[in-house]
């Protein structure tokens, strides 16, 4: 009995690589749910940002526990791509809003071409 509690206790006290990976998975799934459930295009973009942040946490966790700094450099690049994607996504959303006065997903079917 005590082995379980001591193992359980040690699970709480010393934080290892797995803790960060579980945190990153949880955030990733939250972002996924956000993308699937929400109708507003901008909130979907935000959920994608949330998923990208989850990926960043696991990059850095792996980087730290294998003391290889490429994880941080990869996070650097992921941030740039995510910011660029948010910029273009919002520029698109603004131009769609100007046309349709509504930013809901339903209106995306009207795009021709």
């Amino acid at each position, binding site marked *: 009995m005590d082995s379980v509690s001591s193992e359980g206790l040690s699970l709480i006290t*010393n934080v290892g690589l797995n803790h960060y990976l*579980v*945190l990153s998975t949880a955030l990733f799934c*939250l972002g996924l749910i956000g993308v699937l459930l*929400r109708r507003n295009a901008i909130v979907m973009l935000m959920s994608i940002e*949330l998923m990208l942040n989850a990926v960043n946490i696991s990059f850095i966790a792996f980087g*730290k526990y294998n003391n290889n*700094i490429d994880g941080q450099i990869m996070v*650097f690049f992921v941030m740039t791509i995510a910011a660029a994607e948010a910029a273009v996504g919002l520029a698109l959303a603004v131009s*769609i809003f100007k046309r349709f006065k509504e930013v809901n997903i339903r209106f995306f079917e009207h795009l021709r071409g």
Partner: protein
Amino acid sequence: MTADAFLFWFLAITTIAGGITVVSVANPIYAALSLAFTMVSVAAVFVTLEAYFVAGVQLIVYAGAVMVLFVMVLMLFDLKHELEAFARGKVSGAIKLLTAGLLGGLLIGAIAYSPEGSKIAVGANQVAVAGDPTKNLGYRLFTQHIFAFEALGVLLLVIAVGAVALSRSKGGTHGQR
């Protein structure tokens, strides 16, 4: 209960709580503000992972720039509280939730049972410059990842031009008006 374990659990709870508020709150402005809060707590998680420079960059780029753009766009649109913020259909909603939960369960299962010992080759090719880890990051950025660095410079230029062109179109992708 060492200090950094307590810090980790505290930050894990705030990050997950922030993430849940982003997804569940109906008003998009509160979603954007809680996402900004999540970004700040993710930056704090980076600090517990001793990635200090990346935590600072996360604060500047994500919490300080991207989220301000989101909040500004939402305020420009004068978006009020949305009635149908969530996709209609209870069954399809349940299926979506189920798939996301399944994916999460699979991942966590894979993490839990992966042998802890299998360390990937410890960063052998680490030509570490003395002391400061950020100097090391700058060092590797310019020796190992020089091409990606230049490619990103070009990408940012392309995005700047694209964003201006997009904002100048008279609404709608074909600018028919």
